[in-house]
Each structure stands twice: as structure tokens, then as C-alpha cells.
């Protein structure tokens, strides 16, 4: 296994603080109330939002707010080795953390006794699929007209060959030292997702978090452009860094 960083350049040619190429698109599915699509590196993820809608059975609804339901799912052909369609424990946990990353942005009190469903389908997976999924899901929520305090943008930082890097690819995630996915509402400075797998000193933790937040800010800008493109047709619909 070769080194992952040579002369400051990563195996896919990026510098430490560079995002992978990405593409965001809003309004890609006809039936959904809101939808979005993201490509980030090899990730290809489509997200649909349905709701606010009635809750069945009714006793699961809440009188003063809506409930948010979220399903992150990988298509069987999305991975290197075929994945069975039934949801794995990993997918169940990621569904939960994605929901909890998005919910702080939603004005849940505006939709009492209803539910909002967020469905993420990973058509092709790469490192950072949960972050890419959050970034796209927030766009789908906006496309559905759900009231939000801010968009949520997500991006990981991590440690690879001793260097703190932004937006880990699959191989960097698997063979690197640490991975730290982060989501944030950039305008409010509120961090809504933080996970860490792997060892970081406190100094590295701080630098990683700073770098991840910088990546989120760039993706947030791209989210705004994708919405403008969808609703005002004034910006190009593809943003490749």
C-alpha cells in the first residue's frame, strides 16, 4: 500500500484543503415535493422530500410540531461489492445522524401534527456519503418549501499520512488515520453533525474542525447557487471546483 500523500498532493491529485469535484442540482424528481441530486467525487446521491403530510397512525404525531423521518439507503450496485437491499445497522445509524443534522434547521413548530419524510438514495458511494447526503437533503427540503433557519452544509475533515485534509475519499477514509464528518448551519454558526473515527490530538481536532467548517462554507455557496439556478435561472447549474 503506497503512501496517500506525496509532496503535498493526494492520490487523486488534490491538495490537503481541496474538495473533490461536485455538482448540485435541485428539483430532479417529479413526484417528490422537493428533491435534489449531488455528485461529490464518485458519490451520486438523490434525495426526495415528501411532506408536511398526515401521520399514520395518528398517535405518532405531535401536537406542537412536525416529526422528521429520514432514510439513508444504498442501492445494491452502489458499492464495490454488491450490497443486499435490506437496511444494514450502518444505514440505520446514518439515517439517524442525518436526521439529527437536518432537524435543527427546520422550523418544526410551523407544521404541527404532520410528518416530513426525507429519503436519501445512494446510487454510487464514495467516502463522505453521509455529508454529501446532508448537503443535498437540505436543498431538497428547501425545494419542498419547508421553512428553515438556514441551509445545512456538511463536509468531513480527517487525518491522512499525518496531514489534516479536507473531504476524504474512500481510500483516504479506509486507510487514513481519522475521519471527522461535520455539518453546520453556516449563517448561524451552529454545528449539527460531528462524528469522529480515529485518533487526533486536541490541536489536530481543532484544525480538522476549522477545515471542515471551511469546506461546509464552500458547499453552502454552491447550495445557494443551485437554488438560484432552479428558481431564478440566473446562475450556471453546475459548479465544479
Amino acid at each position: 500500500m503506497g503512501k496517500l500523500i506525496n509532496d503535498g498532493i493526494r492520490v487523486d491529485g488534490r491538495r490537503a484543503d481541496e474538495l473533490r469535484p461536485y455538482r448540485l442540482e435541485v428539483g430532479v424528481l417529479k413526484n417528490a415535493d422537493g428533491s435534489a441530486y449531488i455528485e461529490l467525487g464518485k458519490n451520486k446521491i438523490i434525495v426526495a422530500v415528501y411532506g408536511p403530510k398526515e401521520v399514520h397512525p395518528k398517535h405518532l404525531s405531535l401536537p406542537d410540531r412536525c416529526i422528521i423521518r429520514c432514510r439513508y439507503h444504498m442501492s445494491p450496485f452502489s458499492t464495490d461489492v454488491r450490497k443486499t437491499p435490506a437496511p444494514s445497522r450502518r444505514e440505520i445509524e446514518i439515517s439517524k445522524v442525518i436526521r439529527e443534522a437536518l432537524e435543527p434547521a427546520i422550523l418544526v413548530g410551523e407544521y404541527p401534527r404532520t410528518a416530513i419524510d426525507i429519503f436519501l438514495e445512494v446510487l454510487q458511494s464514495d467516502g463522505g456519503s453521509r455529508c454529501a447526503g446532508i448537503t443535498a437533503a437540505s436543498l431538497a427540503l428547501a425545494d419542498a418549501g419547508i421553512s428553515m433557519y438556514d441551509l445545512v452544509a456538511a463536509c468531513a475533515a480527517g487525518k491522512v499520512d499525518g496531514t489534516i485534509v479536507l473531504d476524504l475519499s474512500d481510500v483516504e477514509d479506509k486507510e487514513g488515520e481519522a475521519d471527522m464528518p461535520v455539518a453546520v448551519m453556516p449563517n448561524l454558526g451552529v454545528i449539527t453533525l460531528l462524528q469522529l473515527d480515529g485518533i487526533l490530538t486536541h490541536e489536530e481536532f481543532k484544525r480538522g474542525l476549522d477545515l471542515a467548517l471551511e469546506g461546509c462554507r464552500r458547499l453552502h455557496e454552491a447550495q445557494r447557487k443551485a437554488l438560484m439556478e432552479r428558481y431564478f435561472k440566473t446562475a450556471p447549474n453546475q459548479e465544479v471546483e
Partner: protein
Amino acid sequence: MAAAKKSFVMEHLRKAHMIELLAKGKRLDGRALLDYRPIDIKCNVIQKANGSAQVSLGNTQVIAGVKIEVGPPFPDTPDKGLLVVNAEILPLASPYAEPGPPDEEAIELSRVVDRGVRESGMIDLSKLVLTPGQKVRAVFVDVSVLNVDGNLIDATSYAVVSALMTTKMPELEVSENLQIKEKPNTIPLPVSNIPVSVTFARIGESLIIDPDSEEESVMDARITLTTVDDGHLCAGQKGLAGGLTYEQIMFAAETAKIKGQEIREIIKKVVGSIG
């Protein structure tokens, strides 16, 4: 659940209106009775799959991915590779789809498309044997339905066929001691035929092709007939709680041959452009 909430009055009115239109040979979206909606096929959309295709049929959208693995054959067919077709109607595809294991609609969809491919002899499964009775190639074709707007069977079928036709898999070498080694080059699947399904809906006394969701919501019966390259029939499936007359079935069989040939040309053109 949805059914119980429908306005039955409105449903009957809509159906009456549609039957009136169809009697004049017209459809709500302006198509003639035997017209397909625009068909769009894109291959190689999933790089991690051995083959893939995304198909739109009007607003119906599906994506198929092929994964090739090596494993043991089924005990009763030691001299054949495996072919498994599995379709899921994702919850993001429609307000009525629900998360969970495939329901009977998705299972029927999978099995009808599977039979079309299997019975046509499209893939020569006997050529997928590596060491007889021990190791064969297993071809998994998984389909994710992304947006439901009627006629999932044909959209799924075209996606599966297109993905299989553009599949590349590593060449494998079986050494003398029966070890399997991957060679650097890739080869296509042994494809010998293009099965094409054509699905009809009966609404009142009219037979139409490629129904959309609105037409499906009032259709009485459905029939899918699949033909092979030389126009012969290789698979069929009547669906829904209505019947068909002998004449309607014979008409559908003839039409499936003609329309099937048109769509076969579309698929060939897309696949051919991939090389």
C-alpha cells in the same frame, strides 16, 4: 390507505372522461393509443457497477446496475451461471411507496422482467460456468425505481436489457488446480438476443400502450408481452383484476411484435454508441 381516501365520485368521472376520449382515439397527454412516451436511455451511469443504465419513460425513471460475482451454482443447475433480477420501488419514487421489503407489486415487477430476460435466452448462462458444479459467474441485476409514473415493467425491462448489453466483466482464467485468476482485460456478457417487453392497458374497450400513472389509476386490465429478435413471443403476463377478450390478446400479440421491434432499434442505437 390511499385508496380509501380517494374521491370515488371524481374517480368515476375521470374514468368516464378518459373512456370517451379513448373512443375517439385520443389520450389526455395527446398521444395516440399505441404511442410510447419519449424514451431516454443512458448507459454506464454507475462506474462501480459492471453495467448500468438509467431509463426514462416520460416521467417514469429507473436505474439498473449489474454486479458480477463468482459463486457456487444452484444445486439443480450445476452447468449454468446465475441470473438474479431484483427491483425495488424506492420510497422516494412516489407518495405511495413505503420503506420496507418489496411488496407484491415489486416482486411481480422483478419476476416479470426476470422471466423476459431468462426465457428469451438473452444471456447464455451455460457460458458463465467456470468450474462445473463448483464455481460460476452470478449476474445480479438490481433496479431502483426513482420516479413512478406508470409502466414500470417496460421501463425496468429496458433498463435491465441495456445494462446487461453494456456490461463489462474481467476475463477469468481457471488454472489447472482450479484456482480462478482475474485477467487484466474485460469482456462482455454472452448476449445473443434483445428481449423487449410491450405493456398494454385496457381501459373500457380500448387497448393502449405504455400507460402513465393517471391511466393506470383507471385501467381495468394490463398485459405485457415480450418478443425476441425474430419477433416471436417469449414471455407474457396479464395483470390486474380485469379480463381481456381473445381478440384483445391477439391484437396485443401482433402489436407487441411491431412496437417491440421499434424499441429494439432504440436500445441497439444507444448501446451501439457505447461500443
